């Protein structure tokens, strides 16, 4: 057994430059997560994250932030590695810091930012329409004038993560001139329109149809170029956060597999004595090593790089991490045998989490096409 290297559960993401502050944060969060009882995120997890300052930490410095997307990646990795399914990635890692970048934000944005930083409210975004991938341009949801500072919204969105539980919905659409607009709806206006469902990894989500929904001027938070850079900020940060979540879930599966191979005995010896399985286990850790690297690269790129560099880093990260996720999740179940297929066995939950994350992140072919284009 000792010959198989077992990554420890509290290991930091392998960021290229070790950072004492982040390491301390990781330690505190790991300890706090170990004490959680698995209650609803709003009641149990949120107060804990607020106490650790992890809503502010991912924000720009003027909000008391530190480390930007690297901090977000660290939190997302540890949450996913303890089996938590929560809106932290979409709300805190992606939407909050991106909204904070807006010049002259509208009144409701400033109010929301305050609530997000204090962990009082949660926001989500509607990125999916009819397409099988998240849509980033050519939205079919249309905002048109309805006279006197009023607008109407027509279209449909699918699979809005945590829609039933969110306080705010960020909604990209197209105006009559064909420009991107970002709308922010409060709970009262979108919640009656939701058709809820549960996703593979037990995340709650919902579809929503809008037909002539009346919208006030102040719900429009960005138009044109400003809207494009806001959307881009959210999507890129979400990608980096989901990469980190995938790495966390993989780390869990790899640890659990090592442990199982050590304790399960067949033919009078532990499974870890079979060379066929030892090699395949090592192949899992190789995938994980590359995935860790690329998740760190993605997080760094979000904050630092030029748009071109950022696109390339994120697409490469998606490609490497999605492939690793398919591989690690399948191999882990296989090496557990039948017990890996039981819903009660934790690895089966992580298997579905990794499947969901691979689908959110989009197909590896799409990542490659992005790199070729």
């Amino acid at each position: 057994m000792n010959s198989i290297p077992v990554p420890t559960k509290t290991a930091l993401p392998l960021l290229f430059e070790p950072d004492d502050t982040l390491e301390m944060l990781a330690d505190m969060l790991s300890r706090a997560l170990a004490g959680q009882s698995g209650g609803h995120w709003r009641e149990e997890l949120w107060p804990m994250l607020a106490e650790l300052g992890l809503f502010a930490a991912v924000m720009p410095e003027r909000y008391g932030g530190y480390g930007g997307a690297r901090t977000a990646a660290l939190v997302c990795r540890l949450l996913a590695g303890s089996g938590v399914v929560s809106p932290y990635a979409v709300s805190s890692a992606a939407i909050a810091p991106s909204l904070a970048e807006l010049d002259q934000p509208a009144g409701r944005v400033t109010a929301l930012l305050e609530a997000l930083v204090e962990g009082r409210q949660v926001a989500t975004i509607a990125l999916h329409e009819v397409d099988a991938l998240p849509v980033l341009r050519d939205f079919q949801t249309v905002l048109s004038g309805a006279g006197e500072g009023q607008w109407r919204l027509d279209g449909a969105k699918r699979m809005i993560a945590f829609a039933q539980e969110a306080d705010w919905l960020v909604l990209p659409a197209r105006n009559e001139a064909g420009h991107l607009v970002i709308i922010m709806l409060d709970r009262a206006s979108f919640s009656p329109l939701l058709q809820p469902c549960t996703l593979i990894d037990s995340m709650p989500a919902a579809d929503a149809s809008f037909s002539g929904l009346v919208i006030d001027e102040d719900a429009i938070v960005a138009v044109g170029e400003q809207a494009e850079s806001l959307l881009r900020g959210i999507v890129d940060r979400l990608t980096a956060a989901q990469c980190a979540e995938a790495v966390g879930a993989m780390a869990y599966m790899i640890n659990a597999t090592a442990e199982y191979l050590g304790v399960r005995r067949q033919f009078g010896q532990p499974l870890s004595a079979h060379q066929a399985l030892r090699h395949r286990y090592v192949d899992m850790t190789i995938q994980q090593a590359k995935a860790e690297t690329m998740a760190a690269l993605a997080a760094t790129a979000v904050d630092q790089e030029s748009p071109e560099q950022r696109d390339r880093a994120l697409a490469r990260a998606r490609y490497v991490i999605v492939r690793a996720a398919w591989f690690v999740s399948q191999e882990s179940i296989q090496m557990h045998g039948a017990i890996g297929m039981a819903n009660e066995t934790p690895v089966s939950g992580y298997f579905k989490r990794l499947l969901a994350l691979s689908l959110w992140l989009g197909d590896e072919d799409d990542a490659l096409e992005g790199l070729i284009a």
Partner: protein
Amino acid sequence: MMDVLGYPESGLFSAREMKFRNQVRDFVAENLPGEIAARLKCGHHANRGEIEQWTRILHERGWSAYCWPKEFGGPGFTSVERYIFEEECAIAGAPELVPFGLKMVAPVLMKYGDQRQRDHFLPRIARLDDFWCQGYSEPGSGSDLASLKTRAVLKGDHYVVDGQKIWTTSAHDADWIFCLVRTSNETKRQNGISFLLVDLSTPGIEIRPIITLDGKHEINEVWFEGVEVPVENRVGEEGMGWTYAKYLLEHERLNFGGMGFCKRELTRLREMAATSLRHGRPLLEHQSFRQRLTALEAELAAIDLTNLRFLREVEAGRENPLQAPVLKIISSEIQQAISELQVRALGSKAMPFNPQGIASNAGHYFAAENYCNMRKTTIYAGSNEIQRNIAAKGIFG
């Protein structure tokens, strides 16, 4: 009708076999209830009622025990005819017949059972009066089956059985279970095992559900506490169960094919790819996806035809020990590959899980659910690692 994989019209099957194929195809088209076919083609699993209904329809025609020889009440199909029969039924959307009775316990009874057991059980299996399940695996005995611990102690004219079986497919739907039990502690573990037929309504048996990662109830734990099994329900001799089980396992492996099922799922995959949009264009128009799909089709054709080639070789009396493990490995891996590409094709649309209600079920292909479920194919019926060990042993000794 063009073959799903676009094979040539002639050259693969004899004129007699083609005629047989048409006969089966016409029968299935006329007799398979439309509601069943529609449900299965949407990715649902057949329930016990649907399997019963279809078995009875086939029974009327003399085809329910399609894999049995004439002397035991089967139609006496050749192995290629069986392959054709399974393929036509699966492609049309028919439920798979219960393999535990037809393909597992029946061949053992034909070879090792006594006259009374054959006369009583075989006709009941053919009509699905008895739904069977397989009690081999135990918590501590999976790949290493010979280590099994469930005990059967002979007391007068019955055995008393105590212990636990696990991962038992369909036990909750079943009437009977065939079990491997330990009847003595020999130094060579394989020698103390016997093969018992157990009525699941006997007092002392408890069946507990195990929910699998796709959220379904398909497998179970089966607990035995002081369960009395009449000695006449032992198959063959006491202590010889391992020999019978090995015979059965070989049967199970040669039967693994499932090519008709793969072709049905390939058709579904093409449907998914035609309706799924990526950047506003159907996925089928994307070069990268076409390449994946085309590669999968080539792979499936290779596996399907290898299957057929092995059957021809077996028919000609040229069996070789690599056929069974190779067939199990390649068939199970292609089933998984198809289900994986289905999920990839749907992308985020595959994410809602087991949605309830008719409205949200419409257009839901159950691709992610089936992808999860298909993980089993490389684990059960002798895991693929064990198959590779068997193959390697055949080659290197």
